[in-house]
C-alpha cells in the first residue's frame, strides 16, 4: 500500500457540527484540513431535531443562570459546573452567530428567533417549563450542519471527504497527526499536523435500538483509547424516551414541547406520577426510566414493549387545559392539526413513512432508544484533551462534540444542549488549536507513522477464521441493550462484560469477503465493529464499578444516588488488555447537590 503524506497545521477529524465549527475558526488562523469518513453533510448532527437552547428570552423571561442551573440539575450534579456555566452563558452569543451565518430559525411575529419548551428547561422561579429551545421547524440540527458546511465552502476550507481516520500519531507525548485510509482508492494517507481535533461523534451503535446513524461507531474515542489515553464517564449513555418502536428513529422531545403526552395501555398519562411538576417534560433519564417501569409492570401497549406518544390535537388540548398551559399572551394554549403539521413536518413524515401512522390522527408507538454519549474523551473547557485524573494536558490534542466529555452533560444531558455543546466547544477547539499551532513546531514524523493503522487493517484482511462480523455485532448490541441499558444490575453488567470479552476474542477470528482496495466497506465496517467492542467493554466496566444510580446510570441494586462516594468522574484506561479505572472530582461552584425532582 502506498502512503501519501500531507501537512497541515491543524487537522480536524470529523465534519459534523463540532468539526465544522472548529474548521471555521481554525482555518482563519492556521492551515487546516477536515478529514471525514462521510461527506460532511451526511454527519449525524443533521439528525438533531428539536432545537438549540439559549436563554434569549425572546418569548418570555429567561436567564443564562437558569439555563446553567437546569443543566447542572439535569446532569444529576455530575456535570462540571464551571464548564456548564461557560456553555450556558456563551449560548446566546453562539445562537446569534449562527443566525448571522444565515441559519433559518423560525421567527416570532416581531421577527425574532422563535423558541419552544424542552425537557428539563425551566423558569427557576416558577418551576414551569420555559421556552428556551431555538428551532428551525424540527430540523434544527440539519440547518446547523448545512449552515456550517455552507460557511466552510464560503471560506474555502479544505476537506478530505470519505477518508476514514484509523490512527492518531503521537510523538514525544504530543499529537503530531493522523493516519487515514481513502475509501475510494484504499490508499493510506499520513496527515502531519501540529494540532489534532477529534470531533467524530458518538457510539450509539453499541446498542440494539438506537437513534444513531450507522456511522456512529465511536471511532475517535476508540482511537484515543488505543493510544493509552483515558475515556471519561463512559457509563453514562442517554436513552431518549421516544424512539420509533423497533426502529429507534428519534421522535423529538419537541413533540412533547408542543404539548404531546405519553400514554400507557390504560390510556393514562403516566408521567404525572413520576414528575408531578413538569410531567412529560421531565429530563430524559427520568422519562425513559418511567417508561421502562410502566412496561415492566405490564402497562405497555397490548403488553408489548412500547407506549404511545400522543400529539393529536384533541389530546394536546385536553392536557394543556388540565395543566393550565397558556400562550405568552396569557390565552389558553390550543393547537390545530395544521399547526402541528407546520411545527413538526419531519416527524410527521417519519411516522408516515416508517409506521404508516399519521400523528395528528393516531398516537405513535415509541420506546426508549440509545441516543447520546455523555462521556467520552476527557477535556477541559479549552477542549484540550486530558491524559489523567490530575488534569495533565496532552499537547496538541483537542476534542469537541459528542466524542468529548468536558463535562457539561454529567450523568444526563438536557435536550437541545447537544447542539449547543457542538457549537460552543467546536468553536473553542478551533480557536485554541489554531492558537497552539501557530506557536508550536511540527514534531518530526516517525518513519513508521502508518504502521499501526496498516497493521489493524492487515489483521482484519488476513484473519483466517470464519466468524461473521455481523453476528458478533448483533450479539454485542443485544447484550448491551439488555444488560447495560436503561436499567442495570451487578449480575447483568458482569455477564455483559464477560460476553464482550468473549466477542472480542471471537473478533480475532473473523472472515471478511472483500479484500479489494476500492471502497472496501466490508473492511471498514469490521474495523468499526472493533471500535464498538472496545467502547462497549469500557462502558460496561465503568458501569459495573459505579455502585449508585445517577442520571442515565440506573441500577436496581443501588437505586439511590450516592454523593458521599460517587460524586466523581470515572476515567477508564485500557492497559494490557485490562480496564483500569480511576476517578476525579466533579467541579462544583455555586450549586450544591440536592435531590432531583421534576
Amino acid at each position, binding site marked *: 500500500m502506498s502512503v501519501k503524506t500531507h501537512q497541515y497545521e491543524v487537522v480536524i477529524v470529523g465534519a459534523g457540527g463540532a468539526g465544522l465549527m472548529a474548521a471555521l475558526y481554525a482555518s482563519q488562523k492556521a492551515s487546516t484540513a477536515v478529514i471525514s469518513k*462521510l*461527506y460532511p*453533510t*451526511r*454527519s*449525524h448532527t*443533521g*439528525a438533531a431535531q428539536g432545537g438549540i437552547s439559549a436563554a*434569549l428570552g425572546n418569548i418570555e423571561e429567561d436567564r443564562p443562570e437558569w439555563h446553567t442551573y437546569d443543566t447542572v440539575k439535569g446532569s444529576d450534579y455530575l456535570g462540571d459546573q464551571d464548564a456548564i456555566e461557560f456553555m450556558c452563558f456563551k449560548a446566546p*452569543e453562539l445562537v*446569534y452567530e449562527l*443566525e*448571522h*451565518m*444565515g441559519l*433559518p*430559525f*423560525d*421567527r*416570532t*411575529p*416581531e*421577527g*425574532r*428567533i422563535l423558541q419552544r419548551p424542552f425537557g428539563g428547561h425551566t423558569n427557576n422561579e416558577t418551576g414551569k417549563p420555559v421556552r428556551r429551545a431555538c428551532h*428551525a*421547524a424540527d*430540523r434544527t440540527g*440539519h*440547518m446547523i450542519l*448545512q*449552515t456550517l458546511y*455552507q*460557511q466552510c*465552502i*464560503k471560506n474555502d476550507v479544505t476537506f478530505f471527504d470519505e477518508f476514514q481516520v484509523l490512527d492518531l500519531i503521537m510523538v514525544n507525548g504530543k499529537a503530531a497527526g493522523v493516519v487515514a485510509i481513502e475509501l*475510494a482508492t484504499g490508499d493510506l494517507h499520513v496527515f502531519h499536523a501540529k494540532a489534532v481535533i477529534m470531533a467524530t461523534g458518538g457510539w450509539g451503535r453499541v446498542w440494539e435500538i438506537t437513534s444513531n*446513524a*450507522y*456511522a456512529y461507531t465511536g471511532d475517535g474515542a476508540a482511537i484515543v483509547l488505543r493510544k493509552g489515553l483515558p475515556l471519561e464517564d463512559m457509563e453514562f449513555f442517554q436513552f431518549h424516551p421516544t424512539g420509533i418502536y423497533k*426502529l429507534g*428513529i428519534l421522535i423529538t422531545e419537541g413533540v412533547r414541547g408542543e404539548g404531546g403526552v405519553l400514554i400507557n395501555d390504560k390510556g393514562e398519562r403516566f408521567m404525572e406520577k413520576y414528575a408531578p411538576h413538569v410531567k412529560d417534560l421531565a429530563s430524559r433519564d427520568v422519562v425513559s426510566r418511567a417508561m421502562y417501569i410502566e412496561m415492566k409492570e405490564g402497562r405497555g401497549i397490548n403488553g408489548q414493549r412500547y407506549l404511545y406518544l400522543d400529539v393529536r390535537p384533541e389530546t394536546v388540548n385536553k392536557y394543556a387545559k388540565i395543566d393550565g398551559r397558556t400562550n405568552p399572551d396569557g390565552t389558553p394554549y390550543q393547537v390545530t392539526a395544521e399547526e402541528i403539521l407546520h411545527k413538526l413536518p*419531519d416527524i410527521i*413524515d*417519519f411516522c408516515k*413513512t*416508517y409506521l404508516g401512522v399519521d400523528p395528528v390522527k393516531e398516537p405513535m408507538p415509541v420506546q426508549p432508544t440509545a441516543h447520546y454519549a455523555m462521556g467520552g474523551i476527557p477535556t477541559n473547557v479549552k477542549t484540550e484533551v486530558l491524559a489523567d485524573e490530575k488534569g495533565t494536558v496532552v499537547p496538541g490534542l483537542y476534542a469537541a462534540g459528542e466524542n468529548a466529555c468536558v463535562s457539561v452533560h454529567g450523568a444526563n444531558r438536557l435536550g437541545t444542549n447537544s447542539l449547543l455543546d457542538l457549537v460552543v466547544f467546536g468553536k473553542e477547539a478551533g480557536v485554541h488549536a489554531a492558537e497552539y499551532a501557530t506557536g508550536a513546531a511540527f514534531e518530526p514524523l516517525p518513519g513508521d507513522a502508518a504502521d499501526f493503522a496498516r497493521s489493524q487493517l492487515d489483521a482484519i484482511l488476513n484473519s483466517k477464521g470464519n466468524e*461473521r*462480523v*455481523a453476528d458478533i455485532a448483533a450479539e454485542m448490541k443485544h447484550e448491551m441493550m439488555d444488560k447495560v441499558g436503561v436499567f442495570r444490575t451487578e449480575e447483568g453488567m458482569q455477564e455483559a462484560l464477560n460476553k464482550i470479552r468473549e466477542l472480542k476474542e471471537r473478533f480475532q477470528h473473523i472472515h*471478511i*469477503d*472483500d479484500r*479489494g482496495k*476500492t*471502497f*472496501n*466497506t*466490508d473492511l471498514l*465496517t469490521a474495523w468499526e465493529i472493533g471500535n464498538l467492542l472496545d467502547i462497549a467493554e469500557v462502558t460496561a466496566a465503568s458501569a459495573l464499578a459505579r455502585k449508585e444510580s445517577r442520571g442515565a446510570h440506573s441500577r436496581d441494586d443501588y437505586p439511590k444516588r450516592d454523593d458521599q462516594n460517587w460524586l466523581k468522574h470515572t476515567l477508564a484506561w485500557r492497559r494490557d488488555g485490562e480496564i483500569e479505572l480511576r476517578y476525579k472530582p466533579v467541579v462544583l461552584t455555586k450549586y450544591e447537590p440536592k435531590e432531583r425532582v421534576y
Partner: protein
Amino acid sequence: MQVTLKILRYNPEKDAQPHYERYTLDAEPTDRILDVLEKIKAHEDGTLTFRRSCAHGICGSCAMRINGRNRLACKTLLQTLDTSKEITVEPILGLPRVKDLVVDMTTFFDNYKKVMPYFVNDEPLPEDGRERLQSPEERERFDDTTKCILCGACTTACPTFWADNSYVGPSAIVNAHRFIFDSRDRAAAERLKILAGESGVFRCRTAFNCTEACPREIDITKAIAEVKRAIITGRLD
C-alpha cells in the same frame, strides 16, 4: 416473506462491465431496501458496496435507483413495492461509477459550489448584537428549499444532467433558491447571474423527474420556475 433483489454490481478491480446479480432472502414487509441490502452484506456477500449512514432519510447517503426511480434506500419500504416481482436496484445515473451502488459525487458537489450556496450579507450587524429580524412570512418564503439534504436523487434523475454534467442541476438550484429568497441575504443578483448562464436554470426542461425523486418532498420544479421568473422579472417575492 421472500424477496428477490436484482442488483447492478460493478467492481472496477474485476469487472470490465457492470452486471446484475440476484439475491433472494427472507424479509418483513416493513423492512427498508436498506435493511435488505444490509442483510445481504452481513450474511451473504460482504463485497456488496453501498453508502449509508443515518438510515432515516436525513443524511442523504443512500440515494439509488430502485425499480427504475431514484429513492433513498432507507425511506423505501418493501410494502410500498411489488415484492412478487424482482426489485431492481441500480446506482444513480449520470455520475461515474466507483463500485456497485457507489458513484463519484465530486461533480455533484462541484456544481453545488458553483451557485454560492452560502449566506452573504456584509452589512453591519444589529447594534445590540442580536439576530437580524425576519418576519415569519419572509422565513416561510424559502422554507421548502431549506429541507435539501444533498442526496443527489434529483440531479441524477434529470435528463439534462444525464447528458451534460456541466448543467448545475436541480439540487444546486434548490440551494441557490434557499438563499435567493431569504430576505436577509444580499447576493441574489450574483446567484441569478450565474444561473442565467449556459449551465443554469434555462437548461431545465421541466421533465419533473427531480420533484418525483426528492425524498424530502421539496417542490423542486416549482423552485426552479421561481428562480427562472426571478431572473426574468428581477422580483424576489
